[in-house]
């Protein structure tokens, strides 16, 4: 029940935020912050009262009793659909990340959104609610519902508060994800049908469907349906083209949510569903997925380098980073999976921060074109320093979270396929190329003469506080990632064992 409450708090908070606009234009923001804080507080309170946190040490994917939380209540019994949610270490981390970045997004929207603030914050909270649902649902239909529904407020955020080309971007985003979602729906129903044929029981429950005997061909096709849906969201090469447009056109808070959280749902889906539901098929498919991952790393990096739009560059860098996640998931060993999870979190912070910087620049310069920038460090040293931090974070500087992630992924992949790891490692070089180019074009060089007419305010207290929180988070992830690794370890181990069993059968 606690898990449903989390979603409900956010939903209701959204409604209140929408209505509170009548009080003042700032009210919705405070409501949003309070809602997120309340959700977080509630979650922590529930965790605090739980006496079986040690379950984190022993979770098996197929047994809900070993999960941290599990909740099940009938929804559409005719089809065996339940309101079934469960929380393990991976979900917990993702939920925490979501709430954290949600607060960051509210901060990012503080001055960026100057009309219909109420509806904006409502959409933001509703998106968060949907994402939380995605991270906790273990009924496949419920998962699908959250999966699709979270996109609608996101669509609104891009379509209403986006930049000049928002119609195109919002539409592209929605169609890509929905069309691939349809494939997932078909695959889900196929899986359920297969399960029903084998057992006679109509069930959408993850824990039931994990034990679905099916022919190899069926498994391949169904796996592909899930895979495409998740890889589009991830996004993996060659399904990534919605992302640069969506990220570029979204308002800052939207980009933060998109890059920080929404992309992670794709990765989460791969780890939670696409792989364990079809272990054998996943292993046979792994080489292709690894190839796509590597292709994404390099392709994203090359394209990031070619961009002149600040946000587009960061967006392509996300494509590149997400390639590492794809690699990590399909290397199918503990090291790489932990790396992928780490990357999900670290990338969430680093990219969210870069998008916030992009948003701050857009607010001040009314442009995202890096040809219109240059030498900004002089006018805004704080922003420059912060940007420098996140740029080196995104190029994988050891000591920061992204490095831990990428290194673990490479380590894991190397054990599976050396050449893939070698090519993926090229991403470290190409990553440096575009990251430093970003720094050079925006902050270094001679100050652009155009700035003389502009009021260039350096980061203020609110922005610095937000940034500092993310800096601390990344440093902590980079120097002491063990708590995070421990949280997910049992789930990851369970998954690896599950696959090994599945293959053995």
């Amino acid at each position, binding site marked *: 029940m606690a898990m449903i409450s989390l979603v409900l708090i956010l939903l209701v908070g959204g409604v209140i935020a929408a209505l509170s606009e009548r009080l003042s234009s700032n009210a919705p923001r405070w409501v949003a912050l309070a809602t997120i804080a309340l959700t977080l507080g509630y979650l922590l309170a529930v965790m605090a009262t739980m006496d079986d946190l040690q379950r984190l040490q022993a979770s098996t994917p197929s047994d809900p009793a070993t999960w941290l939380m599990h909740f099940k209540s009938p929804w559409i019994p005719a089809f065996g659909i339940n309101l079934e949610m469960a929380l393990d270490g991976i979900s917990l981390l993702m939920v925490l990340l979501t709430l954290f970045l949600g607060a960051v997004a509210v901060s990012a929207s503080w001055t960026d959104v100057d009309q219909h603030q109420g509806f904006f914050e409502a959409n933001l909270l509703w998106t968060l609610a949907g994402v939380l649902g995605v991270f906790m649902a273990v009924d496949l239909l419920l998962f699908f519902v959250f999966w699709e529904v979270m996109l609608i407020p996101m669509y609104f955020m891009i379509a209403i508060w986006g930049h000049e080309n928002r119609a195109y971007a919002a539409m592209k985003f929605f169609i890509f994800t929905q069309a691939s979602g349809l494939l997932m729906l078909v695959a889900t129903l196929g899986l359920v049908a297969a399960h029903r044929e084998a057992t006679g029981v109509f069930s959408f429950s993850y824990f039931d469907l994990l034990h679905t005997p099916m022919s190899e061909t069926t498994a391949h096709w169904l796996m592909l349906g899930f895979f495409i849906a998740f890889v589009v969201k991830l996004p993996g090469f060659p399904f990534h*083209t919605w992302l640069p447009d969506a990220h570029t056109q979204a308002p800052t808070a939207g980009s933060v949510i998109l890059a920080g959280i929404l992309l992670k749902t794709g990765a989460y889906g791969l780890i939670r569903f696409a792989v364990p539901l079809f272990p054998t098929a996943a292993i046979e498919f792994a080489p292709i997925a690894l190839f796509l991952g590597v292709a994404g790393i390099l392709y994203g990096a090359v394209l990031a380098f070619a961009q002149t739009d600040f946000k587009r560059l960061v967006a392509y860098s996300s494509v590149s980073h997400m390639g590492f996640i794809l690699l990590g998931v399909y290397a199918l060993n503990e090291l790489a999976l932990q790396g992928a999870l780490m990357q999900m979190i670290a990338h969430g912070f680093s990219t969210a921060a870069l998008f916030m910087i992009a948003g701050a620049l857009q607010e001040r310069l009314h442009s995202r074109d890096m040809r219109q920038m240059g030498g900004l460090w002089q006018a805004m040293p704080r922003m420059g320093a912060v940007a420098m931090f996140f740029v080196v974070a995104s190029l994988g500087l*050891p000591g920061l979270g992204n*490095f831990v992630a990428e290194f673990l992924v490479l380590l894991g992949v190397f054990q599976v396929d050396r050449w893939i790891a070698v090519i993926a490692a090229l991403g470290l070089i190409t990553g440096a190329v575009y990251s430093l180019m970003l720094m050079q074009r925006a902050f*270094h060089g001679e100050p652009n003469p155009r700035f003389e007419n502009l009021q260039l305010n350096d980061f203020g207290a609110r922005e610095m506080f937000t940034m500092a929180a993310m800096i601390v988070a990344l440093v902590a992830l980079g120097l002491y990632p063990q708590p995070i690794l421990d949280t997910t370890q049992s789930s990851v181990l369970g998954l690896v064992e599950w696959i090994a069993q599945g293959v053995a059968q």
Partner: protein
Amino acid sequence: MSNAIGLVPLLPLLSSLLLMIFGARMTRPMITLLGVGSVGAAALATAALAMEFMANPQPIEITLWTWMKVANLTSGVAFYVDGLTLVMMSVITGVGFLIHLFSSEFMHQDASYARYFAYLNMFVCAMLVLVLADNLLLLYLGWEGVGVCSYLLVGFWYTDRANGRAARKAFIVTRIGDTAMALGLLLLFTELGTLDIQSMVGAANAKWQVGDSLPTLACLLLLAGAAGKSAQLPLHTWLPDAMAGPTPVSALIHAATMVTAGVYLIARTHGLFLLSPTAMTTVAIVGIATSLLAAVTALMQSDIKRILAYSTISQIGYMFLALGVGAWTAGIFHLMTHAFFKALLFLGSGAIIHCLHHEHNIFKMGGLRSRMPVTFWSFMIGSAALAALPMTSGFFSKDQILLQAYQQASIGPWLWLAGLLGALLTAVYSFRLVFIVFFGNAKTEPDREIGWAMAIPLTILCALSMVGGYFALPLAQVFPTASADHPAHWVEIVSIGVPLVGLAIAYGLYLGRQLSAPSWTTGVTGQALREFWFSGWGIDRLYDGLLVRPYDRLAALFSSEPVDRFYSAIVDVNQTLHQWLSSTQSGRMRWYIASMVFGLIALLGIAFNIAPGAL
């Protein structure tokens, strides 16, 4: 004391963080105190540590905390101190402190004074972590950390585009090496199951035989990393450009410490390299080739810092040669003496540049001997040590290297011969510099002589350059002992004599004018050759054409997002169909009826199986 090891990198780190956060609000003296003082304190702590170690020369290991523990990977933030580490720490904190002190005057006028010391302190911290690390992953952390600091400091004056370019080049070229090194780490971990250096070497020796291919591969990958960081062939091109940074930075990072990290890495993992004679030979060949190539290039340069930069590349080549022939101690010894005299030379050049309104061209200098006596003597001593004139510190270290190179099993004499040629060239170019800059007619007037904060470090470094050769390094336990037998006496005598010959040639060419350049050097071929050498054997241009421009072109090619064209095509198909179908909605009733009739006929067709079914 051993518990305070952590303090050594922590002090500069704290100082750096404080400067970053509060630097804008601090006064200059406070910044100086914090920036210079923290490194001074670290130096004192190092000295205390060294005392303790001398008393009880046992390696010290401490683990601060577990960094990550995933599957069979366990990596701690853990430090390992032995003689080698201590030598490195002493150089870093000692020379580092002097350079910090020097900087406090050199950079005093700069608007970003706090930022400068923040970066510099961060660098010292990262460098200390690099040498203290007990596992390769933590070493890699320091390794990349110094890379970033180098990037920040080379591009310190960021408003100039060229500086930014040089900084990026430095970072990216070294990153290429770093990536190879990371792959080496992956390979080593996958094969040996640990990244802890001591246990890894043990495991390697247990698992592999001398001459196996896997250790060779691993060592070559590590070598690539080392070559990147230490500016060796073929990844040396970044170092001359990196001179764009403030001169003290060049002294600290690009002469004394960071660039020798590669030497340290190979020395630290010598247990692995010993398993692979091939890798060892490669190290030696890379070293001597780089050394010669850079020496020739240095001879052609006119920018004072570029001369020193090529000289650095060349000297590190010697260190690699030493490592390659198994002269571990000699290599580290040369690392240390080189740190002294090269820091001296760089600081000296910094003093010149400082006093000569940022003039870099040696041909616009001259006659500075009398006007800047402190600097002159520093340069004299530094050049003498660099040229390895007898009794200077450089003499001892280089002599050892050449002698041990001669004894290398396979191609020893050839290495020795090449090394001699290098030594000759070194003497020529170093005294060419001295003669042109300090003798002859004054071309640019210095506006002042240096102040005490610059003079003291120079003086101390002069002293170290002179007496550094008598230091006994506590490396006996670290490295296997070198063979005791000495080569023939004539070898030793030739080795001693060659630098003197070089000095004579330089005197003849540039000061006394007794010699004139052979006639062919002024001809067309000579001119072309000089330009070729001046540009560093055209390697930059080669890379530009081979890597940089193709990458640019690739990016330009892809910038229109070819993948998206596929999706656009889908959209276009749908649009076209929409338009086409819309045009059928003509509003004409008879046309509508016709379509119904068509539909009826089609249905009849399907009903009679004329058309293939859809099911």
